[in-house]
């Protein structure tokens, strides 16, 4: 699906990531974690084909859709029209979306449980709804690879759960490949099978279960993470425990 070899990414003149190699099979999910400014967004933009890399290659089969970090998009369109824009790839310059395109858009709105909002104005939606509409738009473009830049950063906990449940479902139903960046190691740990951990001096790639450890998180973020087990030790969570004690102890 996606093969990245010897990739070097820079922003302006600053070199961010050097010699990154990984492979991603179809239907898998890759998490990208790392502190601010380490190059997560830059990496995702290169993978999405929006920016060029300095060296190395990104080879992929199929089409890619990219959702930026800031979905505070201003558009007067209604939700259905917004989702219909996903068909742009398939329409010649003189064509307008027809009833088949409309059906495709409605199908994905239904999958995202947004069909009741089809005629609402996009601007009036909440941040979480906007994000789901844009995912529906990406799916309407029949993408095989969906890249999301910090999709959970603007969402409350319930919407975060909903988003990841939907992404998981899409992976299974449509064998969609998903790449997302996040600041929450638990999201990466529980929803991804592959992981890229970016630090300022080095990076780690591999299976999520293998490389996601509290030691590595501590090294990369330079804060204290503890492992916490739940459900008779079957579920592992990472908890951030600040080294400086809180002002009031309970």
């Amino acid at each position, binding site marked *: 699906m996606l093969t990245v070899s010897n990739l070097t990414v820079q922003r302006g003149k600053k070199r961010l990531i050097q010699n990154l190699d990984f492979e991603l099979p179809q239907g898998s999910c890759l998490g990208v974690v790392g502190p601010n400014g380490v190059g997560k967004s830059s990496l995702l*933009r290169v993978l*999405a*084909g*929006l920016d060029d890399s300095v060296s190395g290659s990104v080879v992929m089969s199929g*089409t*890619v*859709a*990219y959702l*930026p970090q800031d979905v505070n*998009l*201003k*558009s*007067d*369109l*209604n939700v259905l*029209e917004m989702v219909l*824009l*996903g068909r*742009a*790839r398939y*329409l010649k*310059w*003189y*064509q*307008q*979306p027809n009833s088949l395109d409309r059906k495709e858009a409605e199908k994905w709105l239904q999958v995202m449980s947004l069909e009741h909002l089809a005629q609402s*104005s996009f601007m009036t939606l909440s941040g979480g709804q906007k994000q789901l509409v844009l995912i529906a*738009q*990406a799916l309407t*473009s029949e993408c095989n690879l969906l890249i999301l830049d910090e999709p959970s950063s603007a969402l409350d906990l319930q919407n975060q759960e909903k988003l990841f449940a939907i992404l998981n479902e899409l992976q299974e139903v449509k064998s969609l490949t998903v790449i997302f960046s996040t600041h929450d190691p638990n999201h990466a740990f529980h929803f991804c099978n592959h992981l890229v951990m970016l630090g300022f001096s080095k990076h780690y790639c591999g299976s999520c279960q293998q490389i996601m450890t509290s030691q590595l998180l501590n090294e990369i973020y330079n804060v204290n993470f503890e492992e916490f087990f739940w459900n008779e030790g079957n579920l592992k969570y990472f908890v951030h425990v600040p080294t400086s004690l809180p002002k009031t102890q309970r």
Partner: protein
Amino acid sequence: MLKKLGWVLIAVTIPVLYITSGQLNSSVADLGKILVNLFHPTFELDAIVERVILLIRIPRALTAMICGAGLAACGCALQGVFANPLIGPQIIGVYSGAAFGGALGILISENSFLTLSFAFLFGLVAMILVFVVARVQGYTSRLTLVLAGIVSSSFFLALVSMVKFIADPDDKLPAITYWLMGSFATASYTKIQLVGPLILIALFALIILGYRIDVLNLGDDHAKSLGLKVERNRWSVLGLVTVICAGVVSVAGVVGWVGLVVPHIARHFSKPNHFSLLITSGCIGAYYMLVIDYLCRGLSSMEIPLGVITALIGAPFFAYLLRRRLGS
């Protein structure tokens, strides 16, 4: 149903009023008779009335409507592509280029068709200048485009001043100044034949590109990620806008404000997608221009320049719309 009937009534009444009233008054019946005579000579008519209506007012009305529709659609398309409601056709520099071409044409010759061709040609030249300035390493951002538009605009406005400076103050200078303020007084069938089809074809193509303007409106990265060739589509829209603007300036001189104001009116009546919005803007623009030109002809015994009335009405109206929009 009743509402639709009302719109049809307005759509018919405005042009009929425009054509029948003026310094030389004629009745609606006269217009009817003239139209019937076109197909089958039946009625006896005053030759002067017939000539005024057929050779002056009807071509003038057609020119005004075509130009109004074109400018309004241009404004709408540009506001969509730049995702900025404060942008009008004057921003991309074509206006100033065409203005220079027209002024130069008047300076070097009496021939009005030379003026027309020069205006059109220099409109295109101004756009090419914008293209050269704005495109950096094969890519144009929206910001550099606007800046390049300002550069091109200022450059050609300076050239216009230069032409005015060297023009004969008794003869050429008033002609240039008057032409720059815009007017449909010199409209003729020949001019419509020359420029009308170009404007209408470009307008039609713009409407078809409405869906792509919606995608461009999302921003470059988003549009690119949806598989749209951003550069190619944006320059196509800008090219069509250039053809329309250069065409309008070449027949009517510099007419500001229409492209900025009308899309805002259209948003109240249309669905928000650009396909509908461009059609609505075009229709409203056509009638808006007709009303404006009617005022130019009728407000005083002397004809008031078009640019004066469009700005006098457009500016306060735009301020009102803007406040209302911000208020909601």
